[in-house]
Every structure is written in C-alpha cells, then in structure tokens.
C-alpha cells in the first residue's frame, strides 16, 4: 500500500496515471482482448465487439453529457449520421474506407453545429427535448433522401480494407474495433487533462465563473457538441459495418437511452465509469436472458419474442435503481471497494 504521492518534477504531475499497477493491468486487459478472437466462439466474440463499439459511442456522449453537462437524447442521430456518412461514399460511390471513416466523423461534427446552436440558450430538460427532436428529424431526412441513402431499403456495407490490411474476418474486425476504442479512450482522457477538457467541466459546474475565467461559453459548448458527434459518428460507422447493413431500423431510439444508461450506471462525469457502465449495460440483456431461462422455457420464449421491449424495461429499471441507490454509479462502488480493501479491518 502506498502512503503518499511523492513527485520530483512537474511533468510527473500531469501523467495520466502515476500507478504502475494501472498501466500493467490495463496492458494485460488490452492484450487479452487482442487475443480473445482466437479463443472465443463467434457468439461470445460478438459481445466483445459490441462492448468496444458501444464503449466508443458512449465515450462520445460522455464528452457532451458527462463532461460538459449538456444532456442529449440525440445521440442516436449522430450514430446514424456517422453510419450513413460512411456507407454512402463507400458502398454507393466506391470511395476508399479511410475516406469513409473520415466523413463518418466530420459529417456528424458539422451537423452537430446545427443542433448545437439551440443549446447555447437551452439547458436541462429543454435541451434534452430539442436533441430528441433532432434524432427523429435525422431519421426522417435519411428516409426522404432516398436518391442518396436508398431510403428504407438501406445500404449494405462490406468489412473494410484499411492501409492494406483486410478486416474481413471476425477476428480482424474485432482488432479494428479494439484499436478505435483504445485510441478514443486515450483521446478523451487526454482532452480531460488539457485546456479544452477543463473548460468543458468549468462550463458544466459554473458557467458565469467560467466566462469570467476567459472561457467563451458558446464556442466551448459547440466544441463539445462537435467532439461528441465526431466520436459518435465513428462508432456509428463501426456499428453499421458490424451489422453489415446500414438502415434507419438498425439504429432505434433505444440507443440514445442505452448511452445515457451507460453514463448513469457508470457514474456521470467519470471516464472509468463509461468503461464499467458499457460492460454492464451490453451484457445485461444477455444475463437477463440466462436468468429468465432458468425460470423455464416459457420465460425464455418471452425474451425471443419481445427482446426490444424487455431491453427497454431493463434499461429503465437499472437507471432508476442506480439513481435511487448508488447515484455515484459503478465508479462509486469501485472506490468504496478499494477503500475497504486498503483500510480493512478499520472502518474508514
């Protein structure tokens, strides 16, 4: 156990983590995920890929809602836009996938300015409703622009080939998702320890004081929207590739709720919480299915016929339970466990 923090230079004060244990365990975890495709069957591997993609998307919302305090229900709109911004140039016009990924980030980021501008004046519930409307407007626009998007028929997308590497196989695609997720995680952590990330938190905690410190509120709220939309768009593109088919039905509004549930379950404002929340929320329906399976075949039948509805109920339930019993989220539980581990048998 450590008895304190002894630093000898200023650069050592601004590192992401000063604990060797965190780096070692993090490295082991990433290595394990990189090896996992060779050991897991296709069914279990799909959960790993889902966790990585969902985690990337949730990090996008985390920048906006967790860090900057702007509640958005329009997350699914950015995911959908990202998926189409990838699929249209790549599947329809034969552009290289790298261009597709670039446009999957840039297009949502530009569109986010449109939804970001109302946010300059709106807060809380009103902003949530505006972004909710945005999500539905996006799906309507996509459906009506069928000359570009194929409308309700959707666009089939192939696994990409990037920088000479073919990501056709399941294992390779999992690796692609892993690289994107880890890169996004580091980018978000770095943003949080730099000028822009602190400005986001300042805007969230006290906007008048933030402005007095020289932070341009409008510019930083827009920046939060654009960063969030960029990351979400990339995640949307990956999800489209995972489904191998991009359509409006593939991106139900439930995804917005799912992302918010991840932030709340993990602990609002915490990046570690996003990771923990993602694992819990992605695996929750599966755990529930197994649990229902124990009750008998009829209960399991219910899950296969009403999967979407059951997920809705589950997300609602965990949001309520966490808000009531552990508002700090899984990160709060983790800190308690750590304190108990260090201090036991003392009480505090």
């Amino acid at each position, binding site marked *: 156990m450590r008895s304190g*923090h002894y630093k000898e230079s*200023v*650069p050592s*004060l*601004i590192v992401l983590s000063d604990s060797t244990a965190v780096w070692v365990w993090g490295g082991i975890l990433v290595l394990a995920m990189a090896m996992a495709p060779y050991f897991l069957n296709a069914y279990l591997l799909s959960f790993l890929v889902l966790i990585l993609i969902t985690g990337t998307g949730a990090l996008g919302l985390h920048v906006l809602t967790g860090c900057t305090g702007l509640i958005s229900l329009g997350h699914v709109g950015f995911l959908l836009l990202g998926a189409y911004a990838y699929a249209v140039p790549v599947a329809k016009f034969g552009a290289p996938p790298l261009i597709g990924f670039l446009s999957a980030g840039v297009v949502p980021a530009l569109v986010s300015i449109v939804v970001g501008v109302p946010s300059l004046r709106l807060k809380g519930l009103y902003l949530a409703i505006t972004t909710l409307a945005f999500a539905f407007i996006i799906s309507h626009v996509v459906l009506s622009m069928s000359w570009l998007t194929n409308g309700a028929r959707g666009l089939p997308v192939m696994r990409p080939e990037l920088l000479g590497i073919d990501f056709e196989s399941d294992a390779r695609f999992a690796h692609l998702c892993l690289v994107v997720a880890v890169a996004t995680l580091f*980018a*978000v952590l*770095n*943003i949080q*320890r*730099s*000028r*822009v*990330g*602190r*400005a986001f*938190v*300042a805007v*969230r*905690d*006290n906007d*008048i*004081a*933030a*402005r*007095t*410190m*020289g*932070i*341009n*509120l409008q510019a930083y709220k827009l*920046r939060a929207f*654009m*960063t969030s939309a960029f990351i979400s768009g990339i995640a949307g593109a990956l999800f489209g590739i995972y489904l191998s088919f991009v359509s409006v039905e593939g991106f139900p509004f439930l995804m917005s709720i799912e992302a918010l549930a991840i932030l709340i379950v993990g602990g609002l*404002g915490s990046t570690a919480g996003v990771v923990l929340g993602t694992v819990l929320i992605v695996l929750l329906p599966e755990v529930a299915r197994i649990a229902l399976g124990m009750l008998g075949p009829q209960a399991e039948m219910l899950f296969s016929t009403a999967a979407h509805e059951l997920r809705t109920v589950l997300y609602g339930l965990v949001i309520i339970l966490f808000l009531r019993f552990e508002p700090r989220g899984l990160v709060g539980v983790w800190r308690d466990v750590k304190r108990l581990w260090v201090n036991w048998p003392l009480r505090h």
Partner: protein
Amino acid sequence: MSALLEIQGATKAFRGLVAVSDVSLSVERGEVCSVIGPNGAGKTTLFNLISGVLRPTSGRIVFDGKDMGRVPSHRFAAHGIGRTFQNLALFKHATVVENLLVGCHTSLRSGVFAGAVFFGRARREEIAAREQVEEIVEFLEIEELREKVVGTLSYGQQKRVELGRALACRPKLLLLDEMVSGMNQEETEDIARFILDIRDDYGISVLMIEHNMRIVMDISDRVHVLHFGQKIAEGAPAEIGRDDTVAAAYLGPATAKHPRRLADANR
C-alpha cells in the same frame, strides 16, 4: 500614465431599479482600493460591470487605457481583470489544481485535437501551466489540498482556492467580492497578508468589496463609499472614518449628530 481602471459615470438600471447610478471612480496602479456601503448599495453590481458579467446602461469603463464597452464578456480575463465571487463560484466537482488550471485558460492555446494527442506543444504548455499553479499553491499555503475535490473543502479553504484561481488569470486588477466574510480572525489576517503580498510581490492592483471594517481601514490605500447606487464619498481610510455622510449612510441620520468612528462599527 493614466489610472489602471477608470469608471466614468457608470449607470446600471434593471427596468425601474437603478442599482448603480452615475458612479465614477478610478483605481491607480499598485493600489489597494475598497468599495464599502450598506447592503443593497450596488457594490456587487458595480463589480459585475467591471468584470463584464453585466453591461452598463450608460457610462464608460476604461481599463488600462482601453474602452471595455465593445470587449466580449469572455475577453475581460485576457485583458487582465480577475475576480472572485461573493458566494463561491468554484467548479466544485473538480480538484483544487484543476480549478486553478482553469484560471490559466487565457494563457494557454491548445485546442481539442492538440489536447487529445497531448504531445509536443500541448504537453509543454500543460507543464508550464502546472508550474505556475504550483507557485500559486505555495503562495497561498494550500499544498495539502492540491488533489482534494473542491466541494469537500471548508468555506475558508474554498475562498482561498477562489483567490488562487483569480491569480492564475495573471490579472492586472484583482476584484475581491467580500473575501473575508464568514472567516474567523486568523483566516482574515491570512487573507489581509495575501492581499498586501499580491500588491507588493506581483504588482497587481486590488479592488475589494468588504464589510469587515478592520481590514478595510488597515490595508486599503483608498476607500470608495456607495449608498443606494450612488457614490457618496471617496478618500483615505482615516478620512472616510470621520466622514459624516458615511456615518449617516451606515447608522442612520440621527446618529450623525453624535458621530462614532466608523472603524469602531465592527468591534
């Protein structure tokens, strides 16, 4: 050289209510000035005008030779105006160091992308900012609070962090809104010492709103008195203490016939 801050006939009206009425005052370089006055005299409104939170209905605010009328609110810090708030306005979920680093915002440059990569210039910039913050932490003697989340600190400690955050802006003029209210004798004396050091060591001028007459009389070079939005007196602390109109504003007109020294009011 002209005064650092010059307010010329500033008026702020909220609909019918005139909170600040035709107030003119100036703060010279290297001066500690106080603004005093009974509750509701318009002191905080005046501060909001100077720091760009509110805009004057009429009149001009000239800072360091520049008319601030057309400067956007968020640019006031970059021009050299730092302030603290009457009722704590810290970023309470962030740590002490993070709060102070937000104060460095205007002296840093990196954007979203540079921050995300955190390499080269962005990293060097963060190290330099952290060095500056460490200096302030040492100056304010809050070393042991560095990594504490601000919301968990005591009131006096939070006030000190707010002073540090304003200092991190590297201001030319520091506006302190009731810095020592709710502090005990020892904490008050610490703050008084800091204010004098800020002026002498860093060359920062200070304008403070204060109800604690001891600190006003002891450390200010000049005192401005507001009453119902109007400036009724200005002068050295000793003169203000003897001023009949000031005594009348604080204690009511009847007592003005038996003037008490204002400095005694807090004792």
